[in-house]
Each structure stands twice: as structure tokens, then as C-alpha cells.
């Protein structure tokens, strides 16, 4: 019986070697991959045991870790929770991380390669390793103005520094308080999560960057830009009848007023933008063609994702449009979808002599000792329009505010360029009121986009009436500071 006995014992020896080889694979080779998984709670616990770096807005922490007595050791706090919730995101044991807490986790947790030397120093000096800080581009006054302006209405605001692309305000309502999600009571975390995720108004949705809506008439800036780039001038006369007969279709596209846009059903490009003339822009759209519109839209940032680190949504201008679709797309309807961020980028590009800057939210990465480790350098995304077109477009948009639908955005003593919009996504839901603007028009510093969902009436007046005052308040906050 010894031969099979030896074979069996050798067989078991091989099985035991397999066990050893397998744990070597799991613990030595697969370990990094397993430890990097977000649902691995050990890694979170390990993070909790270190002092997580703060998220800073204008020298004030809007997310910080304070020492506690319980097993987590540090509690994440958001002193002005709802005001910055969509920027900071949350840091939750049960539900992971979001927004900057997720995007800059390596820095905040202190595991980023850029903090390597400091970790070594901590190791040598025996100090508890700490995370780095993330300084945001947000302007507290603008951020507060945005939230005050939105009030309890559903909507969003984005404000950009026109010359750098820095995001000065990013507001989305309804907002939420991230603090309960970071609570050390798991019941409290769960309760907060349940109530936030079941709220039909979706407070955790960042409407400023993560939700696309039909832009409606604010898209006429893009159509105007395409027209000016292809030979139109602000004084070019275009047809502007009361109704535009959609080609290949029996349907017509009316002006909201039901009136022609000028005497004899004709109007200039400037006047068409001023009174937001649907029929004129539908005509221009078909005159230029869908491809020209799309190319122009893409130079303004459509069809590519901005702020990927924040999971921003990609604004869309569709391909292969037929003529009726092109006419509708030219006035920001059909399948055109844009985020408030994209609308603000469009205005910012016009303001910045046609140069579109890459939007960014993180200003600086700081070490635990607050020494600057990394700084975001503004960079150009594209030349959206020529400087000449930008100048003409600026003048036309100033005209909108001074003589047209955007009067509510006017700031005494400062020239403001803007455009109203109202858009409908479905016939059974209330329209969206849009407004976008930049100021000062002669030396632009800030561009703003505002959207308010569920505006009462479906006219551009609502964009001017509801959204323009919010935009003005945000611009004033930036210019006043």
C-alpha cells in the first residue's frame, strides 16, 4: 500500500504548494488592485485613521477633518455644507466619495505621488502622516450670490473667469448637506442617504455640470457665431416672418410673439438676436447647414466632455440633421442638449476674444504644511471664433441687455452682454428659463450661465425675468470683490 500512499502524500504536497502559490498571488501581487477598490472598507478605515486634508475656498476650509475619540479617529465636517456640497461632494464610510472628495482623494488622503517626499519626512520624523489640501477656484461671494439668487427654485448657476476658465461659482438647487453622509453613526449615514436618494428633486444631482437640458434661445449665440464666421455681418438682413415653413414638412415654426421680426418680414442679425427671433435663426440654420452649426458648436465645446474629473456631462449637438431638424437645432431645440457649464463656456469664449479656456475647479494642491505643490495652469481648448466675430457678437449681446430681452441683467455703469432663453424638453413639463451673460463687456472678467427649471411661461421673457437677475447678482459679486 505504500506506493499509492506516497503518491497521495506527494499529491497533497502539491496541493499545499498550490495554496502557498495562491496566497502569494493574492497577498503580494493582487493586493494593490484589491486595496484600490472603493468598496473595500479597510482602505476607508485606514484613510479615516489619518488626518484627511481640507478642501479650501478662499483660505477657508469648506471640508475639514477634526479629531474624534471614536475608532474612526477623524470626522469629516463641512462647515458650510449645502453651499459647497456639489463641489466638495461627500466622504462617506458606507457610500464612498463624490466630487472633489473623490477626484482628489489621493491628495486629501495623502497617498498622492506628489506628496511622496512629505510622507518620507513624516516617516522619518515619526509624525502621523497627513493629507494634502485642495484649494478650489470658487469665489465665496459669487457662490453665495448664486444660491441666494436661485432660492428654493430648481436650477443651476455656473460662473467662469473668462480669461482663465476658472470656475468662480457652481451652484445647483436643491442642494444637500454632506455632513450627515460623513457621520460616524452608520444609521445617520443610511438615513441621510435614503432621504437624499429618494427625493424626487434629486438634490445630489449637480445640475450645473452633470445635467444636460435643451438650451433653447441661448444657443442662438452659437448660431450667430456660425453666421458671422461664414460671412454674415451684424447688419446682414435675413428673413424673419411670423412663421417659418419647416422644409420637407407641413409644420411651421412660429415666433413666440406670433409677429414678424421686422417690417416686411425681414430683420438684421443684430435685431434677430435682440428679440430672439426664431424664424430668422431657423432660416440662418438652414442657410449654413447642420454641419456648419455642429462644427461651430464643437469649437465651443459641444460633443466633448469638460471637467472629466468631476464627471461633468457632455453637451450634445447631433449629427446628420435634415432641414427641419437643422432649423430647430439652430434655435437650441430638437436634440441639442447643454449643461449650464457649456453655456457659460460659450459666453466666456465670446468674452475672451473667441478663445475657449479649459474650465477647472482646482486652483492649487497644497502639502500638509500648506506649501504649494501643484497649481493649475490655464490652458486654451480652442479658438471658438475669430477675435472679430467675438467683437461683433459681444456688441450684439450688449444690445440684447440694453435694448432687448435681457434688460434684467443690466448693471448700472458696467456694460453687460447677455442672452435669454427658454426651452421645452417635452410638451407635458414646464419649460426651462435660461440666461447667460458676461461683464464688463468692454473688459470681460466673468461669464455666467443660469438655468431655472420649471419656469412658469414658455416665452423668452421668463428667461429674462427669472434667470437674468440671478446672473446679474453673481456678476456683481465677482466684479465687486
Amino acid at each position, binding site marked *: 500500500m505504500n506506493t499509492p500512499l506516497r503518491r*497521495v*502524500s506527494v499529491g497533497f504536497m502539491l*496541493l499545499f504548494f*498550490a495554496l502557498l502559490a495562491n*496566497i502569494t498571488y*493574492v497577498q*503580494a501581487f493582487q493586493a*494593490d488592485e*484589491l486595496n484600490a477598490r472603493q468598496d473595500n472598507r479597510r482602505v476607508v478605515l485606514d484613510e479615516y485613521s489619518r488626518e484627511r486634508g481640507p478642501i479650501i475656498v478662499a483660505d477657508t476650509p469648506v471640508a475639514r477633518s477634526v479629531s474624534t475619540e471614536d*475608532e474612526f479617529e477623524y470626522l469629516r465636517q463641512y462647515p458650510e455644507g449645502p453651499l459647497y456640497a456639489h463641489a466638495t461632494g461627500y466622504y462617506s464610510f458606507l457610500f464612498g466619495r463624490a466630487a472633489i472628495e473623490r477626484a482628489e482623494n489621493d491628495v486629501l488622503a495623502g497617498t498622492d505621488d506628489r506628496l511622496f517626499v512629505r510622507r518620507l519626512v513624516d516617516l522619518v520624523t515619526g509624525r502621523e502622516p497627513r493629507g494634502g489640501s485642495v484649494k478650489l477656484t470658487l469665489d465665496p461671494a459669487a457662490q453665495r450670490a448664486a444660491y441666494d439668487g436661485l432660492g428654493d427654485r430648481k436650477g443651476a448657476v455656473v460662473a467662469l473667469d473668462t480669461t482663465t476658465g476658472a470656475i468662480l461659482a457652481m451652484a445647483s438647487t436643491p442642494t444637500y448637506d454632506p455632513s450627515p453622509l460623513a457621520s460616524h453613526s452608520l444609521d445617520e449615514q443610511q438615513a441621510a442617504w435614503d432621504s437624499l436618494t429618494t427625493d424626487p428633486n434629486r438634490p445630489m444631482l449637480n445640475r450645473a455640470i452633470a445635467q444636460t437640458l435643451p438650451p433653447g434661445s441661448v444657443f442662438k449665440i452659437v448660431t450667430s457665431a456660425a453666421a458671422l464666421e461664414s460671412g454674415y455681418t451684424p447688419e446682414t438682413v435675413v428673413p424673419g416672418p411670423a412663421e417659418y415653413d419647416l422644409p420637407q414638412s407641413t409644420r411651421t415654426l412660429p415666433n413666440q410673439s406670433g409677429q414678424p421680426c421686422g417690417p416686411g418680414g425681414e430683420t438684421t442679425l443684430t435685431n434677430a438676436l435682440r428679440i430672439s427671433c426664431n424664424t430668422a435663426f431657423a432660416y440662418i440654420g438652414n442657410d449654413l447647414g447642420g454641419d456648419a452649426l455642429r462644427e461651430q458648436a464643437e469649437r465651443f465645446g459641444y460633443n466633448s466632455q469638460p471637467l472629466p474629473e468631476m464627471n461633468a456631462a457632455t453637451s450634445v449637438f447631433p449629427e446628420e440633421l435634415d432641414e427641419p431638424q437643422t432649423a430647430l437645432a439652430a434655435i437650441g431645440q430638437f436634440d441639442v442638449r447643454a449643461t449650464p457649464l457649456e453655456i457659460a463656456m460659450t459666453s466666456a469664449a465670446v468674452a475672451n476674444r473667441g478663445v475657449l479656456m479649459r474650465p477647472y475647479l482646482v486652483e492649487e494642491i497644497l502639502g500638509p504644511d500648506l506649501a504649494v505643490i501643484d497649481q493649475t495652469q490655464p490652458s486654451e481648448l480652442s479658438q471658438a471664433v475669430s477675435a472679430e466675430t467675438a467683437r461683433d457678437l459681444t456688441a450684439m449681446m450688449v444690445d440684447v441687455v440694453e435694448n432687448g430681452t435681457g434688460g434684467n441683467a443690466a448693471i448700472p455703469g458696467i456694460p453687460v452682454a447677455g442672452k435669454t432663453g427658454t426651452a421645452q424638453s417635452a410638451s407635458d413639463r414646464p419649460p426651462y428659463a435660461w440666461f447667460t451673460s458676461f461683464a464688463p463687456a468692454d473688459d470681460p472678467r466673468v461669464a455666467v450661465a443660469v438655468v431655472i427649471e420649471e419656469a412658469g411661461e414658455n416665452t423668452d421673457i421668463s428667461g429674462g425675468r427669472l434667470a437674468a437677475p440671478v446672473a446679474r447678482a453673481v456678476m456683481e459679486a465677482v466684479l465687486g470683490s
Partner: protein
Amino acid sequence: MSETSDPPTPRRGRGIELALLLFAVAISVAAYVSVDIGALGRVPPDALGYFGGLAALAGVAHVAVRLRAPYADPTLLPLVVTLNGLGLAMIHRIDLARAGEGGLAGAGLEAAAAPSQLTWMVVGVGLFVAVLVLVRDYRVLARFTYTAGFLGLVLLLLPLVPGLGREINGAQIWIRVGPLSFQPGEAAKIVLIVAFAGYLVRTRDALALAGRRVLGVDLPRARDLGPILVVWVTALAILVFQRDLGPSLLLFGIFVLMIYIATERVSWLVLGALLAVLGGLAANALFAHVQVRVDGWLDPFSDTDRFFQIVQSLYGLAYGGLLGTGLGQGRPDLVPFAQSDFIVAAFGEELGLTGLMAIIVAYGLLAARGFRTALVQRDPFGKLLAAGLAISLALQVFIVVGGVTRLIPLTGLTTPFLSQGGSSLVMNWVLVALLVRISDATRRPTPPAPPTDEAVTQVVKL
């Protein structure tokens, strides 16, 4: 194995055993102390008492071996004490984590498991001594072959008796008598190994007769297939009615390997493998609780909620890395059943790859000493019995460690000596007592049994 015509008189090795035992107790107490230092930042106040208690237990076992099995293999007892001591330390460690405030793992406050495990260790050592005292000669066990077989089957079926059996965590493998819960399957395992050994010694000649030859393999005669089919059906019944994959696999594996050793016919291995695959495939197709295990083995990260256990186990192992977090400094309580089925993951986390390797090697040594006892033993019954016990130990360790580390699909089995659980601990002490008893007989200078025909030609160096 080199052969000599004149085997030297074997050393008893009791001094070596005592030295190794001191080492084993030292390791166990060091683990216990470092758990408290790591988790609570202080030396446990009862460290000395703990040391005294463990030393006393080991001492009692050692004295019993000295008096009743003086020629026994000196490494068996120290290995077992080491494993048992490490298990106690880890169970205590997870007690501490569970008692900690916050209750992050979602585990409520449970009664501390370590004290009761220590009590079971006392019972285990008691039975170890009892086996050595009562079973003066293991060969008497051969007389009870059929009694043992019957008893084994009854023990296996007991949990299915209404009113007596209890379902815990989805497996119907417990019986409850008054306040005590017991897994009769652990006892059944040993009793059945005794029965298998006795039965195979009697029938191995018939079982070795070749039937038809298919594809170069001599298949057994159809009429000899009875026993293997009975065990196969029993194993399947455990799987179906008690919803427990591990014991089923273990029982069948032990029997097939023992029949192979007894008959020296590879055909039994082939047949056994075929039946196991057949049963396994059917089980996977028919039973959700088996499917979960197989799916979770193939791709645990496709659904981390459904495959929560194995995923948490892998996270624990990964977090431990090469050197571990140190005892008391990881979060082994995040793994479900960390004190019982998944204790290996807890060791992997806090002692790292290094510590887990040491534990697996310790099991390997234990099994190797068992196989060596079987190899050297001349009496066929003793040979088969020792082989069966060693196989049971090695196979169980492979199944449970392989399952927890995702080498093979996860199955519910305890890790011998480490896992929390009185039935398992006590019965493994009995198992080792039997091994000690056989190894004592094996190494005695004058074999009490007349050599068998086979053994005469096989003189073995010790």
C-alpha cells in the same frame, strides 16, 4: 526511501517534544499578548494566568503521551498546541474588535467566543488523554468496523431529525441537546474513517480485482461498486439535505483516497473523480447555494454583494500584504464568520503572507507526520487508519484554505484547531490522539503485531 537491513532503535523523542511544546506555548502566549497590545495598547492583565493555563494543558497532554505513548512522533502534539493557541489568540482578537464601540461591521455585541473556545480546548485535551488511556492498542478499533459505520451514518443523519436538528447560517448540520449545540458531522468523520479502514482491510483484495479494461484503466468489477456508491449517495445526501458542500466533499474525498491506497488501483481514483465531478455538476445546476459559491469563485467582483464573503476575505488578505498589519491592528472582523470559517483570512490580514504561509506549512507538517506514520506502519489497518486521518486533515485544510483564498470554490468547513467551534476542536484533538496512538505503535522497537506479507519486503528506515 533508502532501505537498510537493520533499522536503528528509534529515539523516543520525548525531550524534543517537551522543548517544542514550550516553544508552542510561548508562541501562543506571545500571540495573545500582542493581540492586546495591538488592539488595546496594553499587556493583558491575565497574561501570566493564560500562560499558566496553556502550559498546564500542554503539560498534561505531554505527560499522557510520556506515560501512554512514549514512542509517539514528538512533533504532533507541539504542532497542534501551536495551532490551537494561535486560534485562541485570533478568536480573542476578533472578540475585542466585536466588542469595540461603533460596531462598524454590523455585528452586534456577541458573547466573547475565546473563553468558551478555551473551555473546549480543555475538553479536547481531556479527550486526547482519554483516548490515549482508554485505547491502549488502536487495533481494537478494527473490531468495531460495522458498528462504527453504522454510528457514523447515524451521526451524519442526526441533524435531520426533527426537533433535534438545527439550522444555523443555512446549514442543517447542528443538533441541540438542552443548552448544548453540537456538530455531529465532526465526530462522524473520525468514526467513519475507522469504519473505512476496517472495511477496506477486509475487502481490499476483492476490491483490487480488475474488471473490464477501458482506455488503459482497469475498472473495478461492477459488484464491488456498492460501497463507493453508498458513500457517494451519502455525500450527496449531506449536500442536499444539510445544504453543506464542505463535509460532503471531504467525506467522499477521504473514502476515495483510502480505497485507492488500500487497493493500489488507479481506477478507483478515476471512478471517484468522475463521480465527484458528476455530483458537483449536478449540485451546481440544481442548488442555488452551490451556484453562489461557484460563481463567486469564478468572478467574485461581478457582484460584491452576492459574493460578499469571498470578496471580504480577499480584501482582508490583500490588506495584510506581505507582513500583515500586526496582531490586533487590522480589521479582520470585517470578514463575515472571521472566527470560524474565515479565520484563515483573519490570519492573512494580521500576520500577512508570511504568517499565513507559516500556518499552512504547520498543517503541511502535521499531515506529513501523519502520512509518515502510515508509511512506516506495518499493520494494514493501522496504515489505513493513519492515512485516513492524515488525509482528512490535509484535505480539510486544503478545502477550507483554498476556498477562503479563492483557489477553489468556497465551502463551509472549519479550519482544524484554529476555528471557533467546540465540536470541531474537540474532535480534532481526538483525531490527533489516534495519530499519536498509531505512531507510538509504529515506532515501538518491537512491533506488537506480526508483520504482514507486504511489510516483510518493505523494511523502512525510520
